[in-house]
């Protein structure tokens, strides 16, 4: 049997004396889409950032295709070339044109030729629907466009896994859809994805598995039907009902 794409064993992380991740165990299979939901401060973003070592866990194991990230001999930048990440705040490089944002890492890290990197970038920009924006600077993009460029930038490295850290939380509501559409396409193409999000409808639609996190622990996990239709854990139920209540209140006000 193939190694799982990601395997996390007994992961612990604390900031000072504050434990933020406690005994996390999980697996992500090839081509699986896993969505992590939970209240703010539950540790879901911190957990995602451990998966490419932007955060250093205190103990436990993280294996990417069987390769341990905790191995002191491993070159962490090599692992990161296989694990793309999309950030809440996009983090595009403002001093470079859109096309250069996308080509810089393939050229410098993968050592691709400029021509190869550019043709890949043009292909990816077409895929995210932004072909005409290749030669503008990021500050002239809307939030939704910037996030789609950020997705193209991560994809240019041809990663095996994509991590999404609340990719729509900083967007105006009317721009959320265009970003989620790009992510849905990726999921359909078979990309392995781990997504932290508050978009419950999206989670229900695209995910193979949902993890509910609270207070640094995975409280419950299951298929989207199991988590959203018949959650077993009290805390999952109250999280989802608070959300539903809030959403229906918002609809009522409108």
């Amino acid at each position, binding site marked *: 049997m193939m190694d799982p794409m990601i395997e996390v064993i007994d992961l612990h992380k604390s900031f000072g004396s504050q434990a933020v991740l406690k005994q996390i165990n999980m697996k992500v299979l090839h081509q699986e889409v896993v969505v992590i939901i939970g209240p703010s401060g539950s540790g879901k973003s911190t957990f995602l950032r451990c998966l490419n070592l932007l955060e250093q866990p205190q103990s436990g194991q993280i294996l990417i295709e069987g390769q341990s990230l905790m191995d002191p001999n491993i070159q962490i*930048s090599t692992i*990161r070339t296989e694990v*793309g*990440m999309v950030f809440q705040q996009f983090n595009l490089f403002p*001093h470079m044109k859109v096309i250069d944002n996308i080509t810089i890492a393939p050229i410098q890290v993968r050592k691709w030729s400029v021509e190869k990197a550019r043709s890949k970038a043009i292909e990816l920009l077409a895929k995210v629907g932004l072909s005409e924006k290749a030669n503008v600077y990021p500050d002239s993009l809307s939030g939704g466009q910037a996030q789609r460029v950020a997705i193209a930038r*991560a994809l240019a490295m041809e990663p095996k896994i994509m991590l999404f850290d609340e990719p729509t939380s900083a967007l105006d509501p009317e721009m959320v859809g265009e970003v989620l559409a790009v992510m849905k396409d990726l999921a359909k193409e078979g990309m392995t994805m781990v997504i932290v999000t508050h978009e419950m409808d999206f989670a229900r639609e695209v995910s193979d598995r949902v993890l509910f996190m609270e207070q640094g622990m995975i409280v419950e996990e299951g298929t989207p039907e199991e988590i959203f239709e018949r959650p077993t854990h009290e805390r999952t139920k109250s999280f989802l009902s608070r959300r539903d209540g809030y959403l229906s209140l918002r609809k009522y006000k409108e």
Partner: protein
Amino acid sequence: MDFRMDIIIDYIPLILKGAMLTIGISILSIILGSIFGLVIGFGKMSSRMILRWPMSAYINFFRGTPLYVQILMVHFGLIPMVIGRTDPIAAAIIALSLNSAAYTAEIFRAGIQSMSAGQIEAAYSLGMSHRQAMQFIILPQAIKRMIPAFGNEFIVLVKDSSLVAIIAAPEIMYWSNGMSGQYSRIWEPYLFASLIYFILTYSLSKLLSVLERKLA
């Protein structure tokens, strides 16, 4: 009060020669000081004590003691120790570079640390090494922010280069002092020297603001 233009005209060739030397010393010191400063600034940001501590000590020493004293130590101490005799122009360039490096190191450090963590995280997440992230992502952006501070530092350096007249480096102040001594005059030599320094620093500040606009 009479103002003797004739002695100024008399000294113009020497003062202009001095101005060329002032410009040469300043340019070389700015370049060397910035290179040392970059290295020292990165050293001070290092996570390793063994690098961080000496770089902090360096900055504290050169910012905390008078440039005048540093010039004398380099001229009468450091240079003879290395090459066996002293050389006022070499001493001037080295003293000014060492001093300027302490200030530029802090400009580099502040500029780099003012960058948002998201930029370096994005670079890392694409597989870049620390060096690549600095070279392609952080420094090009940080240097834009550093230009006003560098402008200040370079202007101070041009003006402070007047102190090397004390070790007989024949720059602007050296010849102005000579003019003052020869004719026992105060206003002509020092006002004329002031004018030359002003032209130099004003041009430099204009040049930097053009650069700032171009890069922004």
